[in-house]
């Protein structure tokens, strides 16, 4: 709860990098006071590594916490399942329970070990018409394990918002301009998103998030391939996270083919997911149902590389890849903090309408 000192503490963590931001809100302006970023690739396959927890602790020590901070943390997307359920008109709690029971049956997880959250339209936005409900769920045991480690070991303050990691990307784009630019269409629009631990395909229709699917290829596979080539993985991951020019690395000749191959493999998997989705819709001329394709990733550099590769390999029969517009107040000089900024936008949005300023 904040009365005088309005701050948002944002923490993003995964197996490869930990980022933190401290945002101060005053007079409807959000200003980034402190930022922290640390790449850490050494892990033994746990979904929350000891290095990760230690780095979070250091990040918080650097940022400095306050008991009244509004805390936003990402929850690993690998531990989140999503589903679209059609339900009759029900009260919020009844709807939640109904979806919980249905998903519990579908995924064969006991109801008692299931935590579910039905996606709601953001404040001030009109909810989509119809009875389709997009729900996110996780195991209660996973959530408790994550919180006990993060709160207990890393001493992270109790979160106000625990957001499935993939949703941070949606916060970066201006929903209004997206709708005006043509997303409000009966056809589908696809946002292909490549992250470090996972990749996700967002599907839009009529200007609203229609569904999301996991793409079974991510930067983790690329890092694994690089590790086999006795290359300094930390350096490459740092370059990827920072959005630096790969050509600056001394062993670029060895790295570049692996990168190209990984990007192509990722885009191929994305195309498969899109085609499978469209086939599932049982419509004639599935590719005619595509309104637009967007690609995004950790930063602008990686996004441009993916766009280039998509053009090169004529993704979806050479369909034009469009550039999705970032929010007007997006601080471009902090492009390497793009993902954690998505979480920051989520926290700031919860407090009030504020513009990011430099």
């Amino acid at each position, binding site marked *: 709860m904040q009365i005088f000192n309005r701050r948002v503490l944002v923490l993003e963590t995964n197996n490869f990098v930990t980022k933190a931001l401290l945002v101060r809100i005053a007079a409807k302006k959000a200003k980034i006071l402190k930022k922290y970023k640390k790449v850490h690739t050494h892990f033994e396959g746990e979904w929350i590594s000891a290095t990760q927890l230690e780095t979070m602790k250091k990040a918080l020590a650097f940022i400095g916490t306050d008991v009244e901070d509004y805390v936003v943390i990402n929850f690993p997307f690998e531990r989140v399942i999503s589903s679209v359920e059609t339900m009759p008109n029900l009260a919020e709690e009844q709807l939640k329970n109904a979806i919980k029971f249905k998903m519990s049956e579908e995924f064969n997880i006991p109801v008692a070990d299931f935590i579910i959250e039905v996606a709601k*339209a953001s404040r001030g936005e009109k909810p989509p018409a119809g009875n389709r409900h997009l729900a996110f769920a996780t195991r209660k045991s996973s959530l408790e394990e994550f919180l006990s480690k993060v709160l207990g070991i890393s001493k992270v303050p109790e979160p106000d918002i625990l957001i499935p990691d993939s949703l941070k990307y949606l*916060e970066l784009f201006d929903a209004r301009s997206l709708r005006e630019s043509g997303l409000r269409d009966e056809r589908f629009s696809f946002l292909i998103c490549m992250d470090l631990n996972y990749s996700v395909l967002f599907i839009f229709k009529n200007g609203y998030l229609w569904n999301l699917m996991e793409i079974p290829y991510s930067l983790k596979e690329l890092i694994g391939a690089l590790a086999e080539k006795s290359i300094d993985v930390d350096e490459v991951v740092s370059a990827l996270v920072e959005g630096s020019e790969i050509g600056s690395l001394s062993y670029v000749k060895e790295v570049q083919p692996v990168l190209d191959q990984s990007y192509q493999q990722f885009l191929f998997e994305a195309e498969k997911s899109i085609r499978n989705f469209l086939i599932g819709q049982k419509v004639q001329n599935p590719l005619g149902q595509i309104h637009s394709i967007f690609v995004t990733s950790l930063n602008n550099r990686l996004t441009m590389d993916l766009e280039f590769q998509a053009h090169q390999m004529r993704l979806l029969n050479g369909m034009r890849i469009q550039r999705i517009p970032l929010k007007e107040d997006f601080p471009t000089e902090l492009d390497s903090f793009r993902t954690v900024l998505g979480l920051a936008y989520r926290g700031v949005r919860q407090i009030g309408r504020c513009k990011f300023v430099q």
Partner: protein
Amino acid sequence: MVDVNLYSKKKPRLKLLTVLILTGILVLPVAAFRITLWSLQMVEFNRLQSQYPIAAREMQSFRSSEFAAARQRLDQQERNLSAMVTRVRAETAKVEKDLVYAGTVQRVFSSFSDSFSQTGNGEKVFLNRMAVSRGSTMDMSYYDIPFAEESTQTLSLSFDFHQSFMESLLKTFPAPDADAQEINFLFLNALYNQLSLDLKGM
């Protein structure tokens, strides 16, 4: 876009400094009011001191703690005075009533005496009964016997005393209860009058 929060159990907490500031904000107007009031009192006190220098010495020696006791004393005195005024008012009313009563009875006797003085040469009056019951009635009965004419030795039929007395009484008692009876026997002509005067309300 969409709002999803997998953990919504956090309870809002405030740090001590915020609580102190909030408390300060709540207390500040009260404190400011008291200080303003005190300042105004001091300004007014100083003005009175400069305007009334002699009284100022008394004002300075006056202790506010004595105010309550002094006020209680004044209240008690006011109550005593009020009771005394009530008592004196009742006594005055009683005395007034007695004076009126005495005056009325006095007027009855005066009327009787005056009427007798005026007509005493030609008539004899025998007071048969007189009883005064204070606050109730005054009863009296008398015989009025006129003398016979010496020259003619005839009975006089005029009761001058009675007429004079009744006329005089009517000035004080507008409706006296009188029962006058004439008695004629041989050479005696008399008038017996039973009179009852209402003294209630006096």
